[in-house]
């Protein structure tokens, strides 16, 4: 004969005070429900969807049989207090739901409001790395006819309100252009034109960024539909080969384009070092070389202002515009050269 027993025996209350009794039994109620078929398995992810920080929990799902299509994109989740943080994702029924509301508790259970994420945004940061975030979209111009123009031309129009987790990577999307397009070869481009970081900020409980995305034009010269990235650029990757490993890989950078304006301000170029074997590089072994044609030498002036920095200035002359100079940084036996174009100011 199989005997059954209580897994979590109730605590013994001998004090007789009401608050003691409440504190002793309050979590039992939600724990019992979470252990039944009324609750569901969900996974809570941080904004980067890392499996390392994901948590499997049990939660009761409310509003799962909504009566309107807009309500059908909203769910409430109930679990033990301390489970949820605003800006986290809840993975439920094969979809990601963004916790948009501030988690609230009635001292027995915690409840959050979530919205369905319909689309995963993708963009490239200044350092070339790619960020992806699931986001919730609502129309910010519901009755707009989709085009605006005058007697010369018409442009497409559309605006979305986008909700995304509040984190350091998400805030880098402000001002960028992104594809919002489900087709295999996306062409619908939007520019993030408004960034609200305080509207849904919950200082102790995470938060949400609110963005406005405005319709922009597809740029075949810069946008990469295959990668799903607008304004795509090839990220810098230090070249390391197994056969002949370089001691140092050098990257020459500058603010803006690799161009110096003839007759304009001096431009500073910086050499960054990457050691292939992780060893420290003695920057004192670095040297700069500026190479240009003999005719242009009289117009090109440079000054090494720091071991890693060189400042180049070019005098104005119509003959020098459109030409280029070669800038080389050498460290130990390795060197890196770039061509610096000389522009005319526009």
């Amino acid at each position, binding site marked *: 004969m199989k005997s059954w027993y209580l897994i979590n025996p109730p605590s013994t209350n001998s004090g007789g005070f009401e608050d003691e009794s409440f504190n002793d039994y309050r979590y039992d109620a939600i724990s019992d429900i979470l252990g039944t078929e009324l609750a569901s398995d969900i996974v809570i992810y941080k904004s980067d969807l890392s499996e390392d920080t994901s948590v499997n929990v049990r939660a009761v799902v409310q509003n799962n049989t909504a009566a309107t299509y807009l309500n059908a994109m909203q769910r409430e989740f109930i679990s033990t207090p301390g489970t949820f943080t605003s800006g986290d994702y809840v993975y439920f029924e094969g979809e990601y739901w963004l916790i948009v509301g501030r988690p609230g508790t009635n001292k027995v259970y915690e409840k959050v409001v979530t919205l369905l994420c319909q689309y995963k945004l993708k963009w490239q940061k200044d350092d070339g790395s790619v960020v992806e975030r699931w986001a919730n979209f609502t129309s910010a111009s519901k009755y707009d006819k989709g085009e605006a123009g*005058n007697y010369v*031309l018409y442009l497409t129009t559309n605006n979305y309100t986008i909700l995304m987790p509040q984190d350091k990577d998400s805030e880098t999307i402000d001002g960028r252009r992104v594809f919002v397009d489900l087709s295999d070869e996306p*062409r*619908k481009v939007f520019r993030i034109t408004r960034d609200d970081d305080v509207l849904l900020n919950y200082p102790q409980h995470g938060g949400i960024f609110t963005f406005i995305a405005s319709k922009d*034009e597809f*740029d075949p010269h810069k946008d990469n539909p295959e990668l799903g990235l607008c304004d795509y650029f090839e990220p810098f990757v230090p070249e390391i080969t197994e056969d002949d490993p370089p001691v140092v890989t050098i990257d020459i950078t500058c603010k803006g384009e690799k*161009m110096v304006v003839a007759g304009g301000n001096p431009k500073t170029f910086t050499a960054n070092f990457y050691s292939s074997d992780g060893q420290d590089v003695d920057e004192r072994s670095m040297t700069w070389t500026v190479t240009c044609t003999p005719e242009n030498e009289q117009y090109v002036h440079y000054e090494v202002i720091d071991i890693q920095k060189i400042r180049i200035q070019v005098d104005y002359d119509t003959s020098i*515009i459109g030409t280029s100079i070669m800038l080389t940084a050498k460290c130990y036996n390795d060197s890196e050269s770039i061509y610096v*174009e000389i522009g*005319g100011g526009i």
Partner: protein
Amino acid sequence: MAGGNEIIQYKNRIIKDILHNSDSTLSTDIVTAIDPEAVGEEDSLLYENVFPYLRIPDTVDEVKAFITMSVDMPRVSTKNYFFKDMVITINVLVHQDYMKMPPRYSATRCDYIASLINKVFNKNPNYGNRPLEYVSDVESIVLNKFFMRSLRFRCDEMNSTRC
């Protein structure tokens, strides 16, 4: 070119002078600045980037450069009834994201294309009774996203066919 169909003839000649100029370098430079992939297939720009009328008919959803035009006969010549004034307007439109050109040009794309258009038509003897006169060249902004340079040229034409 007198005879009542000058406007049609003028527009045909304008298109030819832009896309198939006798100075082929000039046409190549214009086409390259509008769409480098169209070099060698200049006619593909017609009704895609170059329009023989003033308004771009389709809603623009791509970063592009355009040329639109009109040919007008605003009045019979005030000097001589046997002549009429002809005004050619050529608009160069460039999306703001396409304005910047490689440093070697040292010019915005809109200004550069407009300067080539000016080379093609300024003092061009193939229109009217005397070489085309460069009247105005005005920059403006369209829908906050396109820069436009509007060039005007003037000539006079016979008011009717010669007997």
